[in-house]
């Protein structure tokens, strides 16, 4: 399983809609922009967002002798993507599966996809602490998983669930690389006044409470949302934005970690 993958990073959050998929895709694109070969695996089976966010909807997965060939975003083959979205006939089809079938699918994604040589595999997850997460953590025991990046918004109601996810990481023995606080303020384009729509500092307080690093604070930036549907990295398109700065520092942080020899 994942024999040729050097580093695995899981993106988690107890709460839905906080930006796990946006952080996952932009992190994958940022890692690629800094010269890495990257894979992105979407294990949100009931609500896959990665194909849409990267503008890859409608692409088909091909089978070769060794397994499924992931979707490459371009000729350079530096970003490989796998999601159940590519296996649905119609984008509106629901995947109405109970746990055991979801477990089977995720194991297939990890074992039967030809990931090739990758510097990083980013795994985007659904919200919660249930079948998908237990399965992925069980599989991570056999591969060099670097740890998890936790995404949250500053709102108390999101933090409640994210604290549960941190407990999950502790109990399953996965290292928390740090917390990313997303949607942490909106600068009005008309008057430049900043409103903390979903409160503020929640991620920082949680990082302190859990004694894990705060990897960065991302504002609500509609320009990032506009990039959805393409493989454009924030690093290139919005190089001066605070989102790009945060992503750059996360990439640096990861490169620093992975410079050390990793072991399972």
């Amino acid at each position, binding site marked *: 399983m994942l024999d040729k993958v050097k580093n695995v990073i899981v993106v988690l959050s107890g*709460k*839905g*809609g*906080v930006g796990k*998929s946006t952080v996952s895709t932009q992190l994958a694109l940022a890692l690629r922009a800094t010269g890495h070969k990257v894979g992105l695996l979407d294990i949100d089976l*009931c*609500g896959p*967002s990665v194909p*849409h*966010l990267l503008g890859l909807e409608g692409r088909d997965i091909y089978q070769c002798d060794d397994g499924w060939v992931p979707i490459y975003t371009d000729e350079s083959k530096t970003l490989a993507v796998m999601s159940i979205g590519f296996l649905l006939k119609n*984008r*509106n089809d*629901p*995947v*109405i*599966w*109970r*746990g*055991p*079938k*979801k*477990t*089977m699918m995720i194991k297939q994604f990890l074992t039967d996809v030809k990931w090739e040589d990758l510097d990083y595999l980013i795994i985007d997850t*659904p*919200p*919660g*602490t*249930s*079948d998908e*997460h*237990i399965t992925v953590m069980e599989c991570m025991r056999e591969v060099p998983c670097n740890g998890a990046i936790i995404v949250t*918004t500053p*709102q*108390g*109601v*999101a933090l*409640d*669930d994210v*604290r*549960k996810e*941190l*407990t*999950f990481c502790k*109990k*399953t023995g996965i290292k928390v690389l740090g917390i990313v606080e997303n949607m942490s303020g*909106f600068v*009005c*384009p*008309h*008057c430049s*006044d900043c*409103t*903390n*729509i*979903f*409160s503020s500092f929640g991620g920082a307080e949680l990082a302190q409470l859990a004694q894990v690093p705060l990897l960065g604070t991302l504002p*609500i930036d*509609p320009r990032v*949302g506009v990039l*959805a549907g393409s493989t454009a990295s924030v690093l290139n398109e919005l190089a001066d934005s605070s989102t790009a700065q945060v992503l750059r520092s996360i990439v640096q942080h990861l490169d620093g970690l992975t410079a050390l020899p990793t072991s399972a």
Partner: protein
Amino acid sequence: MQAPPPEHCPGVESEQAGLVSACAGCPNQRICSDPNKKLEDPGKALVAAAMKDVKHKLLILSGKGGVGKSTVTTLLTRYLARSYPDSNFGVLDIDICGPSQPRLLGAVGENVHQSGSGWSPVGIDDNVCLMSIGFLLGSVDDAIIWRGPKKNGMIRQFLSEVDWGTLDLLLLDTPPGTSDEHLSVVSYLRDDSAPDSLKAIIVTTPQEVALLDVRKEINFCKKQRIPIVGVVENMSSFRCGNCGNSSEIFPAKTGGAAAMCQEMDVPLLGSLPLDPQVTRACDSGEDITAINNSTTEALATICSKIMASL
């Protein structure tokens, strides 16, 4: 005791139940593979008995997380309870891994009491009560690391062993997706002799990345024969408190909920703005439905449409 299902279990309701290779060795294979035996979950009768005085059940669904299912549930409950003081309302939070209702309804730290007739839900107001797994956890940090079958067992208990009493409307707040929790709650509550007793409201934001998952949820409802009352669009625009201008934070590049409703042939109940007063109230648990603003105006329309449909 229930034996855990084998890893590749096709599901007891599946046509292949008991017939595929994974079923070999499963203690329930004989029951599953018997073609004459219509497998009826014994829990269903218990749920029906416990729910006999609950007139209407309303599922609050969305394929997408974080769009405001719980917030909409809270706002609807509070607004309806205020508008119909002589009716009784219940809220059941079936988001097992991420329960939000205790905080939203201002009941963090309350306890559920066991009585002769089952668990007593927590009283929120004179005519509102709530049950959530959040009340059963020792601390907010406690994680529920359960696979499907345990979550299903918990949901069955919430439906059959909670003393709901007489309710005019039970609102069920759900987790995102179309998986165990959703299948379980539907299989327990759907009554084909009274198809109108269980209906659904769909919550979305205007963004395509949310609508994409929400269309899946609407098709889930159609497949499961649950009538959809309509769609509530949440976080539809943000009005700056400083200059008063509106911005679309989650832009409706594909026409938002209105276009999707037309495409999927479901009614649009209304749009709620992205209101910092609401997000603050979510965290503090206070009731904002008495205030007069654009949120409560929109709520009034949505609630009257819901009540007319029940």
